[in-house]
């Protein structure tokens, strides 16, 4: 770390990763709608914003604006990836995966398998996700559970700027299709000292972000911060929570979770998404299958409700898990309350 004091936002960390990968590899190409490149009307005016801001000045030929044609340009990312480029396509909100889902489900994810391994699809699809911006039901979803279900995809969801930069670089360098989840509230809300040099964080490696031996809390994306806040509070009660940030949801580093559960014997999973067939129940079920004998209490999932995300701020704020709900869930796994809660 050359400049240990340099603080970047999550957004700027992503921008730096994109810039460094573009600079390092001429086959990297970035595209998406509108302001990704800032072509505006005539290619000079423009309004590039977000993690791609400024890139079109540095790499004018490899940043492309697309019309509102997600099927075509995400499909084009697949075709480009299979023939020699490393495309980074920008979906804006992950909710828009709906309009190009075939390209993800049936093309990107399956191409390599269908051709018997004779092609690879090294592409990244960047997406904003999560609640908290008052964007309503069609702009606030998590949806990573859908992609985690699909073999052939890798799914990454960094929780902080350092991971965001290193995981995006790793995703671009990876030879498989990666769906990359960027939580909107972290863009500006998450800031950290980020190394300036180019580096990667390997996909599929969880990180123990706080050690403890009473209970394991696995938390995804923005929920890592809530889990840490909960752990802080629990500490005051004498409960030492271990917090695991999976960072990558597919492949999933179950070994790190197993090791933690073997130590703590209790598991709470925190996931902002809807509950059914979620990453939360996936982790809960998989641990119950493979580390049943390590568990001393029922696993607990803390998720959003089985409901779309409401617009009204009062309602939206009640949607995602938070430190309070996590503390409650942890308490319910502790000896005194195990029985009363298992209903």
């Amino acid at each position, binding site marked *: 770390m050359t400049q240990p004091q340099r603080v970047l936002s999550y957004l700027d960390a992503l921008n730096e990763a994109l810039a460094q990968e573009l600079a390092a590899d001429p086959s990297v190409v970035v595209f998406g709608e509108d302001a990704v490149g800032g072509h505006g*009307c005539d290619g000079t005016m423009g309004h590039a914003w977000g993690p791609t801001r400024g890139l079109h000045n540095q790499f004018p030929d490899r940043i492309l604006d697309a019309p*509102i*044609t997600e*099927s075509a340009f995400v499909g084009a990312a697949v075709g480009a990836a299979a023939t020699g480029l490393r495309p980074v396509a920008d979906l804006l909100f992950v909710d828009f995966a*709906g309009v190009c889902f075939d390209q993800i489900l049936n093309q990107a994810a399956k191409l390599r398998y269908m051709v018997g391994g004779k092609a690879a699809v090294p592409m990244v699809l960047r997406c904003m996700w999560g609640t908290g911006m008052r964007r*309503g039901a*069609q702009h606030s979803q998590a949806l990573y559970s859908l992609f985690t279900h699909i073999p052939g995809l890798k799914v990454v969801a960094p929780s902080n700027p350092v991971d965001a930069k290193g995981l995006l670089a790793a995703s671009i360098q990876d030879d498989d299709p990666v769906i990359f989840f960027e939580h909107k509230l972290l863009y500006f809300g998450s800031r950290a000292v980020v190394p300036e040099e180019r580096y990667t964080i390997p996909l599929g490696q969880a990180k123990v972000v706080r050690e403890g031996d009473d209970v394991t809390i696995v938390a995804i994306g923005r929920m890592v911060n809530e889990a840490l806040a909960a752990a802080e509070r629990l500490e005051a009660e004498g409960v030492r929570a271990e917090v695991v940030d999976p960072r990558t949801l597919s492949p999933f580093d179950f070994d790190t979770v197993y090791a933690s559960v073997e130590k703590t014997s209790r598991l709470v999973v925190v996931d902002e998404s809807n509950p059914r067939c979620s990453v939360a129940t996936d982790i809960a079920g998989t641990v119950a299958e493979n580390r049943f004998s390590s568990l001393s209490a029922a696993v607990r999932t803390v998720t959003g409700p089985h409901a779309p995300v409401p*617009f009204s701020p*009062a309602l939206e704020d009640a949607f995602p898990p938070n430190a309070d709900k996590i503390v409650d869930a942890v308490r319910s796994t502790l000896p005194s309350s195990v029985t009363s809660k298992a209903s």
Partner: protein
Amino acid sequence: MATESAGTLGREELIEAYRVMRTIRAFEERVHAEFGSGELPGAVHLYAGQEAVAAGVCGALVEGDYIASTHRGHGHAIAKGCDIGAMMRELYGKAGGSCNGKGGSMHIADFERGMLGANGVAAGGAPLACGSALTAKILGKRHVSVAFVGDGAANQGSFAESLNLATVWQLPVVFVVEDNGYAQATGTRYHLRGLDVARRAEAFGMPAAIVDGTDYLAVRAAADAAVERARSGGGPSFIECKAGRFFGHMEGFDQQGYRGEGEVDRLRAEDCLVRFTAAAGLSTEDVNGVDVTVEAAVEVAVAEAKAAPAPEAAELLTDVYVSY
């Protein structure tokens, strides 16, 4: 470009058209101010500048007809007769909003008035309008459906599919593309290569008109023709309306640096309200009378919206299903 003399519309109709456009304008300007003062949450896309499109098209509709709208839906909702009090409460996410605060600006709807909803997905309304048109056709009702779609959203595959489905099923639907020159900051010169969407609609097999979207009477004439065709079993039609937006793409977000020098001034100089007042021969008194009422109504809407309570906490979990 289709046009029509104001003569075919009666004085009351003309004043009503003005009232609708003036209400949209007042609503949007007030929302702009409220957003600017940090009072309003959410993603709010303003319609100011395009009023003649919503008013002209919806002016051709009757009760029982349907519209499916876009993310920029306030104008369509007001023109279709939605209550601005309920709309404003919706924008504030309050109880008593059009959607009880659960939808917000991007999902304002009023099924009783045939407003099937704004839509957060580009071109999301086009297939829905095919559906309400199918309802009319199957049930033997003579209701017409209108899908509003932006120039950028017109590139979305579901829009092309809707054009095709509407012709194959000969649905009573009118597609209205509002070309305001931009999809966010991307110009039509880039994303449509400057081509008219109308040519696509024709290639899909339906009649297509291109009109000046700041000219209420031209829009209305084209809409009257298309709606009449649909209502009488003549199948789908397409209208492309050209009219710029006065504000940025979205409140609180868009610096509008992509716009040409003086562009917004030129748009405001062609203000559809001013054009209409002249074309319709409305007097200063006519206009002032409407303006005063409208301003007062918007004032009340905002005050009531601010005072309204948030939805009950339990609302988080209701309305997911009819039964579960």
